[in-house]
Structures are given as C-alpha cells and as structure tokens.
C-alpha cells in the first residue's frame, strides 16, 4: 500500500537542476571558522523534546548533554533537561551498554518519563555501540517492569548537521512508535521541522481553522515555551501525545514542511509507504506564495475554503506590503542558516522586493540552489549565489564583495553586521543576543506580517539613527 506523495510546490525535476551561476566549487579550507551549523545530536534532542512525557537522552560523554542544554537554554530561556549516559574512560573501552541501561532506568524512574529519546554521539558511534541491540537487551533484562517507550536515532556528529539529527529523530519516532495500522482518525499529520514554538502554535491554529485537529510532530510549543509554575515539572507539560503518534498511520494526510528534505526518506514517506497516508511536501510557509501553497494543501485535504479570519490576514499583509514596499525595495540581503529556513526566507525577501545576493548554509548536499530556483524563479530576475558547506569565514569573505545592506539569519551573523554597520534581521535558531526568540513568528500570513514589520522598522531605525536630521515622520 503506497501513499500518494504530492509535491505541491516542489517540482519533481528539482533533483536534476544544476546550481545556477558561476562554477563556484565551494570552500577548500581544512579548518572551519565560526561554523554555520550545529552538531547532529542537538537537533535530535530538540525533536524528542516535542513529545509528551519524553526526555531526550544522549548516549555519550557528559559534556555533550551539558553543552547542548546550555546552548538551547540560551535561546528558549526554558529548562532543557537532557539526560546522559555519562560515559567514562572504561566505558569507551568496554562499551557503553551498562551506563546506557542504568541511565535509561534512572530517567524512567526519577523523571517519570513515558518516552526516552536516545540519540547517539560521535563517541558511542565510534566505539561501535549497537544501540538497537542494547535496547533489546534492556527490554529483556527489565521486562518485569512497566518500561517506558525508548526511541533511538543514530546521530554521529561527524555526519550531517543538527537538521539531520532533527529530521532523523522525527522519522525514528514515526518508524518506532507508529508501528500498527490504526483506524481512520480524520486528522492530519504535520511535520513542521525546526520552527519556533510560536510558529507551531500558529500552524495548529490554522489547521484547526480548517476544521481538523493536527498531530504535530514534534510539538515543543509548550515544552519549550511554558508558563511560570508552582511545582517544577520534571518533564514539562505539552508535547505530542504518544497515543497520537501511534495513530499517525490512520490520518487522512501528512504535511511535511521544508523543501530541502523533500527528496529524503522522512517520517512522511515512512507513513506513506507503510500506511498509505498521502504526503504533501511543501516549503516552509514563509511569505505569500509558500503560505498559499500550504493553505491550498489544507483546502485539498479538508475540502474547505480558507476561513475568513485567515483570508483577512493575507489581505492585510498585502496591504502592508503596498504601504511599506519602498522602504525595502532594492536592498541587498545575505541569508544564512538552516537550509529549509534559507529557502523560505529567500522566497519571502524576493517577493517583497529585497534582492537576495548570497544564500549560505553549513549543511552539504542539500541541492539548495535548485530549491531556491524553484521557490524564487518566478519573482527574481537574478538568482543569488548559493553556497553549501560554508562557515562564517566563507560567508563574510564572499558577502564583502557583494555590498549587502541587510543580513537575515540567526544570532551568529552579529559580528559581521556590527562590523559592516548593517542591520541583522534575527530569524531562526539560535537567537542568543535578543529576547523572545522562542515567541518569534515567521510562518503563515501572520508570520510574514511580523517579519515584514520587523524588517521595515529595522530599516527605519537605522535610517533615523544615521540621519543628521532625525526626521520625526518616516
């Protein structure tokens, strides 16, 4: 039984397209300077954090968990507990199995976890721990206890980026938790990718407005953006319920966001091939056209028209574009960060009259140029230079030659923006030098509106500060 895979906005020829432009061969440095990516297990811990009752668990040395917690906490400003098997030297020689098992029991007993999401690290991948086998042993050895579910994903940090870890963990959850056919549930599976808690909340709101209850995987909209509490929760409330994940095979359709993963095996393809759930693969709904595609998919799935409130948001956004287009028209932007976000942001910038001149990611082999061509070809007269596998050294070196007047991406472009005295529109993860990154909305018409307002105001603020006159009306 094969589910139909609908490439709503992604042309199927995308794989065959050549990178546009200039025969650029990519950087040839042996050294990476100021990386534009994070390590693979970090993404997995974020994905696991979006499941109800789950605790992310790193099989490796203690430092990995602590460094990632610190990094993630600085963005979300929320507790981010990651358990660790805390391997020492002996374990590296004799294998990490005993620590893994002991750690799992502790995580279940003390944290009361109902799901433990185990991600490996370079240490355990290199010593060759067979986690699947260790988990099977664990279930046998402690079979008399009502054990929690354990999902595992292989995330050696020498392979890929945090986005591979994220998507890998989402797929692992679908593969390992949704294993039986379940009755039709009339719902829609939604795999949003690494977006903000505010984005997840808005996506849920949109799907509900079409009369359907989504199963969002992962859903850390509450676990990583929760209320002040009286009692500390070992595991924060919220997250995708385990029962929902188990029932994903019975959903009416799946929607997977992110053009760059649209050629990979994912949770969506797994559910399509095993349970025949039709899969809609779309770009992240950033800006008008990509959001239109998302809405069209929802219309197709539900048979409903766009609810008036949301249609009004679209109308107001277009009205705002008319009001504000001249403030940003012709600006030259450098976009960097995660591949899917890069595509979405480039598409957004292109359609408001900003000219993307360079789009860069630390990830490799993402076919990024082709995805950008597909998303922006109809509005851009000239394609930006598109780079994969680059770091901020490369980005800065190339950007210098392009006279940008705007940077768009996460916090780590701050040094360049400061040096060049140009604005940085902070979007994505991580945002370590501003407040409220977890509540930042980018998706949907409403998200586009917020992005546009922020961009215009950033430009106006700079204009006002730089001006000798300091006009009171702009």
């Amino acid at each position, binding site marked *: 039984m094969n589910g139909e895979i609908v490439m709503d906005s992604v042309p199927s020829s995308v794989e065959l397209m050549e990178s546009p432009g200039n025969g650029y061969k990519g950087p040839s440095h*042996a050294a990476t300077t100021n990386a534009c990516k994070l*390590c693979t297990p970090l993404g997995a811990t974020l994905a696991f954090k979006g499941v109800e009752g789950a605790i992310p668990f790193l099989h490796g040395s203690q430092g990995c968990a602590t460094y990632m917690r*610190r990094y993630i*906490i600085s963005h979300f400003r929320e*507790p981010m507990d990651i358990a660790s098997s805390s391997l020492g*030297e002996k374990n590296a020689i004799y294998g990490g199995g005993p620590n893994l098992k002991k750690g799992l029991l502790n995580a279940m007993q003390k944290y009361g976890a109902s799901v433990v999401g185990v991600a490996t*690290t370079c240490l355990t991948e290199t010593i060759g721990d067979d986690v699947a086998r260790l988990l099977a042993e664990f279930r046998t050895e402690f079979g008399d206890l009502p054990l929690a579910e354990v999902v595992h994903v292989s995330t050696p940090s020498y392979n890929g980026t945090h986005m591979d870890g994220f998507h890998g963990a989402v797929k692992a959850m679908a593969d390992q938790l949704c294993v039986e056919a379940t009755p039709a549930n009339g719902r829609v599976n939604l795999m949003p990718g690494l977006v903000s808690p505010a984005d997840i909340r808005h996506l849920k709101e949109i799907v509900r407005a079409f009369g359907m209850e989504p199963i969002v995987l992962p859903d850390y909209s509450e676990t990583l953006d929760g209320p*002040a*509490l009286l009692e500390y929760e070992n595991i924060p409330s919220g997250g995708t319920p385990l029962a929902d994940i188990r029932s994903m095979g019975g959903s009416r359709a799946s929607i997977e966001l992110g053009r760059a993963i649209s050629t990979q095996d994912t949770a969506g393809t797994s559910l399509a091939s095993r349970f025949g759930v039709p899969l809609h693969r779309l770009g992240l709904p950033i800006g008008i056209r990509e959001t239109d595609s998302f809405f069209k998919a929802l219309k197709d799935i539900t048979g409903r028209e766009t609810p008036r409130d949301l249609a009004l948001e679209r109308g107001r956004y277009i009205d705002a574009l008319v009001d504000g287009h001249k403030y940003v028209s012709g600006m030259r932007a450098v976009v960097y960060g995660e591949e899917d976000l890069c595509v979405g942001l480039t598409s957004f910038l292109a359609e408001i009259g900003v000219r993307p001149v360079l789009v860069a990611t630390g990830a490799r082999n993402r076919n990024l140029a082709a995805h950008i061509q597909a998303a922006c070809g109809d509005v851009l007269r000239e394609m930006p230079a598109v780079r994969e596998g680059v770091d901020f050294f490369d980005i800065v070196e190339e950007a210098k030659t392009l006279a940008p007047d705007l940077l768009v991406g996460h916090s780590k472009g701050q040094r360049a923006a400061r040096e060049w005295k140009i604005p940085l529109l902070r979007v994505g993860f991580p945002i370590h030098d501003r407040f409220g990154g977890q509540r930042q909305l980018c998706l949907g018409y409403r998200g586009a509106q917020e992005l546009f307002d922020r961009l215009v105001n950033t430009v106006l603020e700079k204009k006002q500060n730089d001006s000798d006159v300091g006009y009171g009306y702009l």
Partner: protein
Amino acid sequence: MTNTAKAIGAEKAPIFEERKDQIHRIGEGDFAMACNRDSLAGAVSQRACVFCGSRVVLYPIADALHLVHGPIGCAAYTWDIRGALSSGPELHRLSFSTDLQELDVVFGGEKKLAKALDELIVRHEPKAAFVYSTCIVGLIGDDLAAVCKAASARHGIPVIPVQSEGFKGNKREGYLAACKAMRTLVGTGDVSSISPLSVNIMGDFNLAGETWIIKDYLTRMGIEVVAGITGDGRVDDLRRAHGASLNLVQCSGATQDLAKMMRDDYGIPFVRVSWIGIEDVAESLYDVAEHFELTRPELAAGLVDRTAALVREELSTLMPRLAELRRDLEGKKAAVYVGGSFKAFSLVKAFRHLGMEVVIVGSQTGTEEDYRELAAICAPGTIVVDDANPLELSAFIKEKDVDIFVGGVKERPIAFKLGVGFCDHNHERKIALEGFVGMLNFAKEVHASVMSPIWRFVPRRETGRNVSDASTATGAEATGAEV
C-alpha cells in the same frame, strides 16, 4: 502505556539513591560527603567534560589560536561563549574546528589537522596555537603530539596539544590538561626586567574586565603583575610568568595545578586568594603585602600600610552604598550553586554583608575538604550538595523558599520557572563581580532581581491570595479544552 510507564516513575523523592552521600544537611548527623565521582548515568548532571575544563581555562588567552580537533559541536558550543575581555587581540573570540567528517574518522584526521593549522597560522599569525583533543580523537588514534610538533617546526611558534578527550574524566582533568599545556610555555621568555615585587594573577578570567580591577589594586600597592593566567592572557606573558615572585591562585581547581608545577619547576610560592566579597578581597591583598614584607623587607617597607589605605578608601565608597541596598535585602534567602567550591565560600560571606542567608550551597567539582569547610561556615539546616541536577535543585529551592539563586546559565531556567530571582555568577556574566566594586555590582544585581515587583505574580507567591482561575490553569487543561 503512558500511565503504566509513569508507574515506575512513581517515587516522588527527587534524590537518586546513589547520590544520597553527595548531599549533606548541616546539623543532621556527622559530616561526610562523597565527591569527585563520575556523574550518575541518567541524572541530568550540571557538569560538563574534560574538554570543557581545558577550554574554559585556556579560552581567554587572546593572541593564541584555539583549534578544536573533532566534529563541529565542541567548537560551535564554545564560540565566543564567555565574557573574557582582552585589552588587545581578540583571536580567542573566534571558533576554529577541523570539523571532522565520517571519512576523517575512518582514515584519521592528522592530515586535515596539519592543513588546518597551516591555514589558520598563516591567516591569523598567532603567538601560539592550542590544539584541543575531543572524544573522538582519543578513539581514532590521531597522534596529536606529532602533528603539533611538526606544525611548530614549520611555523616557528609553539603548537601545543591539549589532551582533553571529553570522556576521560570530568572538568578537573580538563583543568590539569590545560595546566600541562601552559607549563610548556612558562619559562621560555625573558624575565630580566621583572620587579622582585611581582605576581601572576591566576584563576581569574577577566570576565567583564575583572582582572583589570584586581590589577589596578595591585598596581596601586606597588606590585607588578606579570601575567594574567589566563585573564586578558597573552602567550608572551605566560612565557615569562616564571619571573614573578608569587602566584595568586583563585578558583579551587582551574589553575592550581599550574601553580604547583611552577612551585616545583621554579620555586615560586603560591597563595590561594579570592577576589569575591569584602573580607576575602581585603584578606587576599593583605596576604600579598605581608608576603612581600616578610620575604623582601628591604623593598616592601610600608606595603601593608599602603594596602590598608587602599582597602579603607575602597570601603569608604562601598559600605554606605551597600547599606542602602541591605535595608531591602535583610532576611532574604539565597541558594548558591557554582562550578568551583572556592567561589561558594566567598559568596556565603558576601551574602552576609547583604543581611542574607545562604540556605543551599553546592558546586560541580568540590572536594570533601571544601564541603567540610563550607559546612563549617553555614548555618544549621543548610543543604550542601555536590554535582546536583535539576530535580534536586528545584526540590531544594522549593523546600527552602529562597529569594535568589546564584548560578550559571543552566541553573537559570530552574530558578526562573519556579519564580525565583537569579544572579548569573558564571562565565557568561557581563557585569564585573570581583573586587570591591564587584561587591557593589553584585549587591545591585541581587537587589534588582530580589526586589522586582514581578514576583507577586508568580504562582508560588500568588498561592493563598485570591487570584483568578486563569493563573491556575495548567497547560494540560488548556490543551484538553481545545481538542
């Protein structure tokens, strides 16, 4: 399944059985604590790893290249991570990695490392390079020492391997690896112009310019500072650090190993100091003065008197302003959980000047002796804890009903989630908390958090008052209502 799984997590006590002897309540039984253990698997330790220990100590050396040999994470998570300031070059604020890929792991990373060193040394012209080993390098068998030696010969600068494989212990082993690396530099510079009344400032990292505050006091006393180790650190300063007559060692673990090595190698004595609080800062300065009056009376005449004058002058500005803040803070309660236990001592004393009591105190890497001394200066009922985790810390915070938590970024969300004030006393701080001026800044920080009107709205303070239903709605109920 969800419910049954919860069943095995039914025990409510937040203390892991294996960790009971790493927690002590003063006044309850004889003092005994187990320390320097490996962290318990599955407990979310606040500790880091060997690499972290080395990286933290060497990081502020501003004109050295810091190259992390390994996959990208270790370098990415330590990029510009600390507020360690430099008065000159800022090479330390960049993040360099060999970003090992799968093929490197299979075939070895030595060639890539050599090439990376060549590129970066040519590009940045550093005075020296530190090459950090990570977990994986310890496993694939790259000969770091050989690659570094060859690179050093090619470029004519010291290229120093740091044996900091993450899994080979905890932060302490990382400190030791860093000290061993620095030892190779010490003793290679010209010391002919150094005054006999000279010191190295060790175990201070110039966060928010703190080394400069201490250096100013010492300079006013007539003492020359040879090297900040590693605050505002320079390779050439380290090379001539053996020319100092005395090492001032702050922070229980980080640089004490190097001080011992320098004592053994060059006969330089060291004193343990603390630049936090009031008594500890004054006492540290007096220790320096007394040392020189004793060892070099012909040069140090009147040094103790000059020091007393300096302390008096500083206190005359500080104390009245502290008194104002203290009026509001009197009787409030604090929790302290920091990396090194030595800092915890100073903080306990510092809080007394604010009229506040420390009711929870702990560290990631204290020794039994440290904790015994801590227990001796804290009030009965105080909880002393080694290598704590979020479950324990949150339970202790609630039990003791503290008003402020002093810790690092990993502890901040625990405190904030429960509606407790917070003061960042870790490497990321941007406000100087050392010296007498630092004591005032600390008091202001504590005051700004503790006295904020927002606490009246957090659940633990709203409880018992007549509040609207909205404040008690839990996330689960809210979700349930929507579905």
